[in-house]
């Protein structure tokens, strides 16, 4: 929209030629100038320039819709608004599952199950709509080379044994998951920019980037001067393209992030903490003791990135093999905690109270 040529904004040919002499060819160039500069460049009076501004603005302003129209449009296809994770309590809290049209982030320390979760979601996305899936292809951008096709098949076969009853169905599913290995920030960004065509061509319904943090933290050292700004720049650029893709095509975009331990030298750094849910030392059952003055763990990539994602799920260790899943940021859900284990069929939610009571019965029987 911003790069729209002025010719298409219905300005007269003469005006466009005159402006191009000053290197003003797109709507963006035109709107960035001040009134005085515009008057000088167009040679028109104050009021004429106002009218021209309105014309150009009308060419690139967004269309208006009322909230009511949006609601009606949503109620027409309700099932395509979420990707159900088949973890029922989580789906209930998130009002359906991973939301389509926005960015969801999964953060965790290493080995907690981020990649497992992503692989499980790729299987779910290829399922037909009747089973809660999105019936589409998946684009998986892998920066850590952690994707395992065998694990993919294992999860699919064990989670939906009735559906994937033949090898052929499994192979068909694997054909619709497109894997891209990108190892640098630059290549990741290039890949994100080229995703639009792929999404249309291959009828993609889910985009996963595993993980954003590993490439960014390799290349940007925030202790060096200027790197923090560059990193923010890269992240916001990537985030805005991904948001555009998510909204245009109404698909969920899933990103994974890492945990960082920040060493604080005093109370001043506490201000860096963006949300208590992000401070894993505050959540229940965490193994990190409450040593507030020395160190605390939080999601990596800074708070500019935290602003850009719409939903944030945090995975962390509890009492092995049980792990914990927190809903840390969501426009529709409050803070919630769930416990899960990783099985052959992927992630399985556990009801901790139920587990405790069965253990109690067991010990009483003995």
């Amino acid at each position, binding site marked *: 929209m911003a790069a729209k040529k002025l010719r298409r904004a219905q300005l007269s040919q003469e005006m466009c030629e005159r402006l191009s002499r000053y290197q003003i060819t797109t709507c963006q160039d035109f709107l960035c100038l001040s009134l005085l500069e515009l008057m000088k460049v167009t040679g028109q009076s104050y009021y004429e320039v106002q009218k021209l501004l309105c014309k150009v603005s009308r060419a690139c302003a*967004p269309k208006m819709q009322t909230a009511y129209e949006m609601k009606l449009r949503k109620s027409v296809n309700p099932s395509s608004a979420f990707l159900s994770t088949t973890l029922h309590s989580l789906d209930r809290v998130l009002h359906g599952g991973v939301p389509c049209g926005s960015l969801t982030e999964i953060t965790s320390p290493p080995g907690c199950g981020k990649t497992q979760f992503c692989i499980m979601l790729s299987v779910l996305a290829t399922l037909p709509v009747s089973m809660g899936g999105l019936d589409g292809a998946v684009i998986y951008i892998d920066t850590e080379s952690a994707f395992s096709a065998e694990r993919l098949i294992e999860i699919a076969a064990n989670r939906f044994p009735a559906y994937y009853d033949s090898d052929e169905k499994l192979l068909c599913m694997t054909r619709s998951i497109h894997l891209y290995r990108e190892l640098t920030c630059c290549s990741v960004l290039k890949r994100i920019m080229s995703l639009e065509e792929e999404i249309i061509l291959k009828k993609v319904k889910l985009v996963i980037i595993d993980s954003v943090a590993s490439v960014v933290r390799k290349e940007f050292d925030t202790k060096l001067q200027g790197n923090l700004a560059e990193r923010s720049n890269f992240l916001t650029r990537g985030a805005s393209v991904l948001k555009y893709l998510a909204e245009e095509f109404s698909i969920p975009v899933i990103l994974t992030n890492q945990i960082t331990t920040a060493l604080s030298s005093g109370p001043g750094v506490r201000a860096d903490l963006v*949300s208590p849910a992000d401070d894993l030392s505050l959540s229940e059952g965490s193994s990190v003791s409450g040593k507030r003055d020395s160190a605390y763990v939080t999601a990596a990539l800074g708070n500019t990135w935290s602003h850009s*994602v719409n939903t944030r799920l945090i995975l962390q260790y509890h009492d092995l093999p049980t792990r914990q899943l927190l809903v840390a*940021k969501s426009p529709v859900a409050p803070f919630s905690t769930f416990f899960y284990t990783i099985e052959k069929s992927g992630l399985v939610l556990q009801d901790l109270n139920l587990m405790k009571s069965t253990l109690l019965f067991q010990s009483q029987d003995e």
Partner: protein
Amino acid sequence: MDHSGRRSADTDGCKWDAGKRRDSVRWCFVLLASLEIGISREEALEALQVVRQECHGDTARTPGGSGATRKCTALELLEEEQTQGFIITFCSALDNILGGGVQLTKITEICGAPGVGKTQLCMQLAVDVQIPECFGGVAGEAVFIDTEGSFMVDRVVDIAAACVQHCHLIAEAQQEEDHGKALETFSLENILSHIYYFRCRDYTELLAQVYLLPEFLSEHSKVRLVVIDGIAFPFRHDFEDLALRTRLLNGLAQQLIITANDHRAAVILTNQMTTRIGQSQSTLVPALGESWGHAATVRLIFHWDNTQRLATLYKSPSQKESTIAYDITVSVPVGRDMPSWVTLSPGKDCTQI
């Protein structure tokens, strides 16, 4: 008086020049007249005005093209301020520190860390602005300009449903006639139809939309709230030229102030927080730089203290700085005094300097 010189200089800059010349001529004229002819300055001024009217006719156009004069006495302003409504947020503590609620004709900025509730409050206000006057609202409509894509229709539906239910409870308890009539038009469908939503994907679209805002508000004269959710997001990347960014932001702020005043609307902007690295520590400050701090009249900062959400009134011309605690709940109004989505945590009302 040189007419041709004035006509071609139809710009602000030249008007000032011409005005200066005119003034200097006028000065001389009045003084001269009073000295030479021996009449008092007031009489000379009167004579000058008569002459000027005959020469100029009505070619003088008011700056800004709005037609309304922008000057008034403080008394008129006081009367206006006292009768003007506020947009209540339904969190009594928040309304208190704001002096009654979100003020019309002013720009209020809400800064906060991610996930703290800025968009929630904006969606709440987009519903609250539509509350009928008999319930204490301003009965207006809302424009929602979204740059981050965090507007959730489902959540707005929840908030609107709770608000309607809350008003029904009040009407039942008070049993007044106009309450019933107002409730007929205050329905979920109507509320949603009067939230005008624009999704701007980059700063050019945002600039364009703000340029077109006066026209839109003239067509929809009942709009009393303009929300720009995420003024920082489109300006935080792809901007090597910080000077350009400052200029564009200032221009935006100016236009929004003019729009707010001309149409008696409240403007709400949400801003992000960014980390400022100091020598020994880093602090969280509102994004977009120091000069942006001047743009808003009222500044609210939402932040955390352990697990408690706090709102601090950071800048206001009429209220003092203070902090309150709030929570975001799933809206379930229980009684007449129960705020619909934001409840006050018991016993936490701290004042902060």
